[in-house]
């Protein structure tokens, strides 16, 4: 379990997170929902120790991340993959180099094994044949999928996805969501930040709703939907209404 306890952080006099306490259960898909600027991406950066909180602690495998030495933090990060919201691909490296850059023990692998690994990962994200392209030659959605392949390259125990489906077409969205499900079956823990409710509900086991740096609700989908919190109701209103929308209901039935 990854625990955040009473995390607060202020940057440039801006309160980014305010007394955030949450648990991420291993082997489950945790969804972080919230409007733009709520602090969703910040939570991921805190979990990885990229940002140091002003207050509070992060417990990963029983250890406080804030008190770890640099070496311990590096070891922790090797267990956690992340897909950044802006992809953060290395633009001086090709797709294949981006994916293999951090692979531990890659020096021990033969040329063919590496090639096989790349092909496997790229076909996983529907990007076969793009090995030698540079990030600037890819579309936004393709970059996102390379970033996903990079995060999965070293078989991390935990993957943090920051808006993995934003800007993708329905087919690629579906394949990313299937991928997250597949990872779960292999025992991987996913934390998915998103504001697309359909996607959240398709893969989510646990939900965390955050607004203005504070947790407003956390728990199962039922608990969230039954919430009395006005912000949560407002946030989910459109989704609930859409499900009552006859067009959507009929198209779902027809497609079954």
């Amino acid at each position: 379990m990854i625990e955040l306890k009473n995390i607060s952080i202020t940057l440039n006099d801006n309160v980014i997170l305010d007394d955030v306490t949450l648990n991420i259960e291993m082997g489950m898909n945790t969804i972080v929902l919230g409007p733009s600027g709520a602090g969703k991406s910040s939570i991921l950066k805190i979990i990885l120790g990229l940002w140091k909180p002003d207050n509070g602690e992060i417990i990963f495998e029983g250890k406080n991340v804030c008190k770890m030495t640099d070496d311990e933090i590096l070891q922790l990060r090797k267990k956690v993959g992340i897909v950044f919201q802006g992809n953060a691909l290395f633009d001086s490296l090709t797709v294949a180099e981006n994916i293999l850059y951090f692979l531990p023990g890659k020096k021990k692998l033969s040329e063919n094994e590496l090639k096989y690994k790349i092909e496997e990962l790229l076909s996983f994200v529907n990007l076969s044949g793009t090995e030698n392209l540079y990030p600037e030659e890819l579309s936004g959605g393709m970059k996102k999928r390379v970033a996903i392949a990079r995060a999965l390259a070293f078989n991390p125990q935990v993957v943090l996805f920051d808006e993995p489906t934003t800007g993708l077409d329905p087919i690629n969205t579906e394949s990313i969501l299937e991928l997250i499900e597949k990872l779960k079956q292999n025992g991987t823990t996913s934390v998915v930040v998103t504001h697309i409710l359909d996607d959240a509900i398709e893969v989510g086991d646990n939900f965390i709703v955050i607004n203005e740096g504070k947790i407003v609700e956390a728990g199962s989908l039922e608990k969230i939907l039954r919430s009395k919190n006005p912000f949560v109701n407002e946030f989910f209103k459109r989704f609930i209404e859409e499900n009552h929308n006859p067009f959507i209901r009929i198209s779902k039935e027809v497609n079954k």
Partner: protein
Amino acid sequence: MTRFQKMIFGLQEFSLLIKDIFAHLGSVKDNWTETIQEMYLIGTKSFFLIFLGGLFIGIILAIETGHQLETFGATAWIAKTVSLGMVRELGPVIAGLLLAARTGAKNTSELGAMQLSEQIDALRAFGASPVEKLVIPRTIAALVMFLPLTLIADIVGILGGMLVSNQTFHSDISVFWNTAVTSLKMKDLFVGFLKPIFFGFFIATISCYFGLTTKGGTTGLGKNTINAVVYSSALILVIDFIFTKVVWELL
């Protein structure tokens, strides 16, 4: 924070970066590819600039001192002036200033753009250290490459001075060369070759520091690139003064 507090804070951060560099210097063996690539970039891409800089400074030095010395009929001294001037002072300073602009701007803009597009965060997120992957290769490359480049500036400057004084003041080429070489004592060479190592170290670390601390989008990147070039150029002049005044007297 006031400006003064910001400066103290910046100095503290910079010293921490330097401490980090020394603490992880051994990691260079895992990052040979990056280091060799940076050496290649500094070496090949700056060669022509340094060549031109050294050549013209040597020529100008010969012309200016030649005209003064000619009035005393002492044009034989041009060789000594040019060779000591180039090796001790002008070679290292000109090479240093040109490299501060070239290498400094390159490092800050590269690392700054990586910082802004979260590539630095990505490095850290995947368990790599930006100091090991980016800063140390650039520092080692500067430490290794600045000396030969300065040497080129020195030699080309002396040769330029030699050609000019042969054309303008009719001095004999072989006499000029012999005087130029024999005027140089161990101490001159030592100071002249130690300077580029210090310059290289500070240009690389200052420019990497400004790159890694970039914030505030493209304006911030522009500002930091300017700062990197300005601070390292100023520091070169200060270090040069310290060498000329203090180190020279200690030796």
